[in-house]
């Protein structure tokens, strides 16, 4: 029997009256049940969108990037906007799994598997855009330091090359992290599934995991080291993406605030995307006991914090532009607010700076419907942020005689829409075939998992949490 003192009492991480067996059943039964009809409908729609993506990429390779709206002076348009947007969304997963793990935030276990899967698929969508943007996609391997017919090497002084390394490393490490977390849960499904094919497949990917504590010992060490490695990695990826802009000398891009500002924005949009997906899935799959309103509230607080950081960065950009005394810098920021793209700028401000401020209200941050709406609004806002950064600086740069207005074409739009097909095709396969909550980790944070919560006879005793009265302590 133990007594714990908590100054801020933490709500139980798993609601309802669950033991280990019912938690296992709650999560892995989803994989064992027959496929729901709605899943086929959603999967069919996603496949159609995926087909649209493949067609638009095929036409792009056939015809060239002239099918997009790119021209002088705007050479980076929707493709780069979409790349930065998707890769930003891909930041939440590793942030939740790595940084919150190092900070010992037990609530992450309910959502980390889910968010990591989202990360991997979002980075896949992101990676497509720079790859097809190069034009001659059949020589894309030139971006890697591989021997080629020119006997040349890639330029290691170029931010675009850093990006290749950053995004591919991020994808690989996220995938490994995800897989390591999956191994014990794959073993759980292997031991519960009835079908022969399922047994072989889950058995193979579970690598023969049998829950040995000699294995857990190395496993936990490995997980912690991976978290320690992924933490600087996740911060570095969007930093390096921002270098694509910040290392150039275009007004509005050449600023030192970009790395932290991009990282805050990435976390902001990533959490919003996790919330969007999570609110749908917890409802459909009946996981309200695991992904509770407390989780939604905690994530909304992070959205409020990062949203305010992004808002602060917008103000700082204006201040520095004025303080620098550089005419072009001053002009570009004024043009963002009142120039040809002012509509995009004000959508961005409304969605990113104003909308999260509602979460100061406890009632609103615990409202599931309201959170769902804001989470979508935030991602619209973050798309516009990348649009404003990429397009305005190029369309109105140094020389007014070369200014030009950029508009996307039909192909720009459907390529972007198509990436949702890629994303949701993978995400639906994940929901159907893999345990969407880290069951082993979730059991580890239940009070029944702690040997201290048992009496001498080996019976479970609910831990008693006492909140010390501050007045008593301070006197």
């Amino acid at each position, binding site marked *: 029997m133990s007594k714990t003192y908590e100054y801020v009492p933490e709500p139980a991480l798993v609601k309802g009256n669950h*033991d*280990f*067996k019912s938690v*296992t059943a709650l999560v892995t039964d989803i994989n064992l049940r027959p496929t729901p009809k709605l899943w086929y409908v959603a999967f069919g729609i996603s496949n159609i969108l995926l087909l649209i993506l493949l067609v638009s990429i095929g036409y792009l390779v056939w015809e060239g990037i002239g099918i997009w709206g790119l021209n002088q002076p705007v050479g980076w348009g929707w493709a780069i906007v979409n790349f930065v947007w998707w890769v930003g969304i891909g930041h939440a997963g590793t942030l939740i799994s790595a940084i919150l793990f190092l900070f010992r935030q037990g609530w992450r276990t309910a959502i980390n598997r889910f968010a990591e899967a989202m990360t991997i698929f979002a980075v896949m969508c992101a990676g497509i855009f720079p790859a097809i943007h190069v034009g001659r996609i059949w020589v894309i391997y030139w971006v890697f*330091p591989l021997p080629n017919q020119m*006997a040349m*090497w890639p*330029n*290691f*002084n170029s*931010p675009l090359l850093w990006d290749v*390394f*950053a995004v591919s*490393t991020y994808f*690989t*490490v996220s995938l490994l992290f995800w*897989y*390591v977390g999956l191994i*014990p849960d794959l*073993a*759980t499904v*292997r*031991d*519960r599934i009835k079908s022969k094919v399922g047994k072989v497949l889950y058995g*193979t990917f579970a*690598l*023969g*995991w*049998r*829950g*040995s*504590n*000699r294995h*857990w*010992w*190395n*496993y*936990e*060490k*490995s997980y912690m*080291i*991976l978290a320690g*490695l*992924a933490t*600087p*990695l996740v911060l*570095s990826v969007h930093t*390096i993406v921002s270098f694509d802009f910040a290392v150039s000398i275009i007004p509005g891009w050449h600023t030192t605030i970009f790395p932290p500002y991009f990282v805050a924005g990435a976390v902001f949009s990533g959490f919003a995307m996790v919330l969007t997906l999570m609110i749908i899935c917890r409802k459909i799959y009946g996981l309200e006991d695991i992904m509770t309103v407390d989780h939604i509230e905690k994530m909304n607080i992070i959205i409020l914090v990062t949203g305010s950081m992004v808002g602060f960065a917008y103000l700082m950009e204006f201040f520095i532009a004025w303080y620098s005394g550089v005419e072009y810098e001053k002009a570009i920021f004024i043009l963002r607010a009142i120039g040809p793209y002012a509509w995009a700028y004000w959508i961005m401000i409304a969605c990113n700076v104003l909308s999260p401020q509602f979460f100061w209200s406890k009632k609103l941050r615990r409202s599931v419907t309201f959170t769902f709406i804001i989470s979508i609004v935030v991602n619209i806002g973050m798309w516009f942020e990348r649009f404003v950064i990429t397009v305005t600086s190029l369309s109105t740069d140094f020389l007014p005689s070369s200014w030009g207005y950029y508009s996307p074409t039909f192909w720009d739009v459907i390529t972007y829409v198509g990436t949702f097909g890629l994303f949701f095709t993978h995400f639906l396969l994940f929901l159907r075939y893999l345990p969407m909550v880290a069951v*082993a*980790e979730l*059991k*580890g944070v239940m009070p*029944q*998992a*702690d*040997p*201290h*919560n*048992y009496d001498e006879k*080996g019976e479970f005793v609910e831990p008693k949490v006492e909140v010390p009265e501050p007045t008593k302590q301070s006197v």
Partner: protein
Amino acid sequence: MRNSTTKKSLYGVLAEFRNPKELIDAAKLVNQNGYRNYDTYSPFPIHGMDKAMSLQKSKLGWIVISHGLLGFTGAIAMIYWMMVVDYPLNISGKTLMNIPAWVPVIFELTILLSAFGAVFGMFFLNGLPKLNHPLFTSENFKKATDDGFFVCIEAEDPQFDSEKVQKLLSDAGASNIEEIYED
């Protein structure tokens, strides 16, 4: 102590316990009785099990740092050779040894190789993948990934004696004690 008359050789004795607390107590007991070739199985890592089983510190850290150093030095060597030795390129008059600009790639490759070390090193230390194992012959053992807590004392242990081991475990409050044979 293997019985040569039986066709299948004995792998060990498996016993089930009710909860993490009983498993830890059992592990302590088995450890104190001088058994060395044994293991405990649980659906999640149990806090304090390393001490109860007197496990040595994991060697994984050394594997990771050696991989990390390999990534670090390998990245520097690769970039130096490509940018300075093999095909020097004059880019707007900058020095060939443009080390600050190499930092991102060096950093990424250090992390990448360390992560490989952390994952594949863990597989190596755990002897995974190992798709077949004598314990998988036990139907009851399937609970080990759900809500079962098990101890297995292996026949390889020098002081292993099936009856003594079974008595020790049943006195400790175990249920479902069974002998596991090699497949």
